[in-house]
């Protein structure tokens, strides 16, 4: 039942972002397809030889616009469920239902995470769905792989904001802190230059490439489209772990908090 | 059966119920064989706890005033008084003591107190007779 409640809380925002994403991707795909890009699909890589148009599509959409939109969705969808209840002062009601706070925490988080997955899948399918169906190239399915870096990047931001909402007991504060941290983190590569030697020592010589979330998404999508680029595995794993760490910290906080 | 209780009174509610039931019986409004409302119904009507009503019914049953059958319904007992006279006297004594104490506190003469008691007994008998005659008329 709580799933239903969390869905209701975030339904409007989810649908808004879904419309925005599909509104961008689908018309563009239709336009590109009409110009005949799909039939030029040849071996080499999913999009090699397809022509400028598809490269342009991937660059503009997948390496600029979509990650930003999905990141923003991650921020905005985070104040839902338990975090939101602080504002309405209904936690006294919710926490006296026969469910552990752990269950409520993870249920709430999962709803948002699924919504983000939905948005990401819609973005990828909306852009490349037609191409994948039409193309006879065996690697076309790899385009679907773009879902992974987009999802992990967005859900990491979502998890962080979700945690901040609970920490600050307010949706608005959580969102502003999340946005602030996100913006700061975009400057992380600068910081990395100083940290690298330290990190190298800590990791016994393995170089850890700490990138921002956007780098993850761009790099990941870039790899899907042009595999020579290399997949940012380290960053991917790092943000993946962070995604799970934040709701765990949120759970610890909720379990200890007095209402 | 319409009872009335005043929960704000210093008299416990269960005692009020017992007193009223006894009064009804003494006045003839309730006769042996009459059914009393179930504990739940009476509690609901009076907006009081079923424990209170249950206690009143239990006390009355122990006193021989009421009788509960197997199905759970409670009736006015056939022979309401089945105790030895000494027992009955023992039960009345606290009330007699209370009248004596109160009367003395109010500076009434013993004679006046006795007159008062007699007046009450006469009034009760009059009510009994009136209901008795009504009963005969309706048959």
């Amino acid at each position: 039942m709580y799933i239903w409640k969390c869905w209701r809380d975030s339904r409007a925002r989810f649908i808004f972002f879904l419309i925005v994403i599909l509104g961008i991707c689908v018309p563009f795909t239709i336009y590109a397809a009409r110009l005949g890009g799909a039939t030029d699909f040849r071996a080499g890589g999913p999009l090699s030889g397809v022509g400028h148009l598809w490269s342009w599509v991937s660059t503009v959409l997948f390496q600029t616009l979509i990650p930003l939109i999905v990141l923003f969705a991650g921020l905005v969808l985070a104040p839902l469920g338990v975090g939101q209840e602080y504002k309405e002062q209904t936690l006294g009601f919710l926490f006296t239902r026969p469910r552990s706070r752990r269950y409520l925490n993870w249920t709430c988080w999962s709803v948002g995470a699924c919504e983000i997955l939905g948005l990401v899948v819609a973005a990828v399918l909306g852009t490349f769905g037609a191409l994948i169906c039409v193309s006879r190239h065996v690697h076309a399915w790899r385009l679907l792989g773009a879902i992974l870096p987009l999802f992990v990047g967005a859900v990491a931001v979502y998890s962080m904001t979700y945690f901040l909402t609970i920490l600050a007991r307010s949706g608005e504060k959580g969102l502003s802190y999340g946005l602030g941290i996100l913006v700061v983190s975009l400057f992380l590569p600068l910081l990395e230059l100083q940290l690298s030697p330290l990190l190298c020592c800590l990791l016994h010589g393995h170089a850890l490439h700490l990138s921002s979330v956007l780098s993850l998404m761009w790099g990941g999508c870039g790899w899907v489209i042009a595999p020579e680029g290399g997949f940012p595995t380290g960053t991917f794993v790092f943000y993946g772990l962070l995604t799970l760490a934040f709701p765990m910290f949120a759970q610890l906080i909720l379990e200890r908090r007095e209402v | 059966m319409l009872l009335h209780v005043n929960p704000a009174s210093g008299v416990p509610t269960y005692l009020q119920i017992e007193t009223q039931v006894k009064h009804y019986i003494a006045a003839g409004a309730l006769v042996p064989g009459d059914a009393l409302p179930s504990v739940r119904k009476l509690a609901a009507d009076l907006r009081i706890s079923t424990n209170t009503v249950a206690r009143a019914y239990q006390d009355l049953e122990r006193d021989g005033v009421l009788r509960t059958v197997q199905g759970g319904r409670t009736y006015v007992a056939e022979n309401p008084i089945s105790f030895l006279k000494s027992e009955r006297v023992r039960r009345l004594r606290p009330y007699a003591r209370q009248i004596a104490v109160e009367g003395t506190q109010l500076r009434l003469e013993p004679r006046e107190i006795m007159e008062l008691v007699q007046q009450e007994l006469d009034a009760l008998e009059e009510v009994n007779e009136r209901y008795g005659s009504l009963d005969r008329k309706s048959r």
Partner: protein
Amino acid sequence: MNDMAVWTENLVKSYPGVRAVDGLSLNVPRGVAYGFLGRNGAGKTSTIRILLGLARPTEGRATVLGFSVGREQVAILERTAYVSESKALYGGLTPRELVCFTRGFYPNWSDQAVTKYSRLFEIPMDRPFSKLSQGNRTKVYLLLALSQGADLLIFDEPGMGLDPVAVDVFLRILAEDVVGEGRTVFISSHQLADVEQIADCVGLIDHGRLLLEARLDDVKNQFRFVTVAGNDLPQTGSPEVLLVGSEGNFHKYLVKRNADAFAAELNRQGAIVAEVSPLGLREIFLALVRKGEPCTSGNAGEIAAPVSSSF
């Protein structure tokens, strides 16, 4: 494993600078209506929040329906219904949707109860909760609690915003469907008249401590006001006697037990016992909360000097 509905042992809850609950040992038997009374800030809501797992006790233990508070909290919440003082629910949902949301948590939920009580309380089931009046909000909260099929119902100010008709409906439901079914009711309220009507037991708390816990019938059978006229304060020395007021020649005592014996003793000492009268709950509450010290020689409240027994 005890079979009390609610049991606490030396429960303490400290906040910075204040002990909201200070060594509280409650005993609430099953199947009764228990009135939990006290002034504002006496510790009632803090105690209730501890029982429901919303706050953690600083010291002491508590069980609800035999389950340990804190460790077995979910088991407690499965069997306990709670109406909080704040009566806050999700503003965007209608009562019908709130019912839909809540029923999923409880296997013993009764839809017939929802139909019956929503009709009795005259709740507008399709208006958003945020647009309901205070009284209607309370009614919705009561509806959810009463339909849950709980073994223990904890009410914190259930009469808030309710008109007398609605209060009457509520008391009737409690008498017939709750206590009448052997379930336990725990009411914390300032509406002494309503508590007095339905309660079997009362627990009176002040400054986080229990001043009185007894069956209401016993209290009414035994507590008496004794008004005495005498020039000097008679010696008593019993902890069961409190001096609650003095005016000139007259002194008024609250006697918790054996009032007749006390009156007789005063008579023997030469004082004139003007009246021995029973007390309603309001008078008991005010007398105990205002004057918590037993009357012993040398400690007579407003009257400083110990007195001899000569008149």
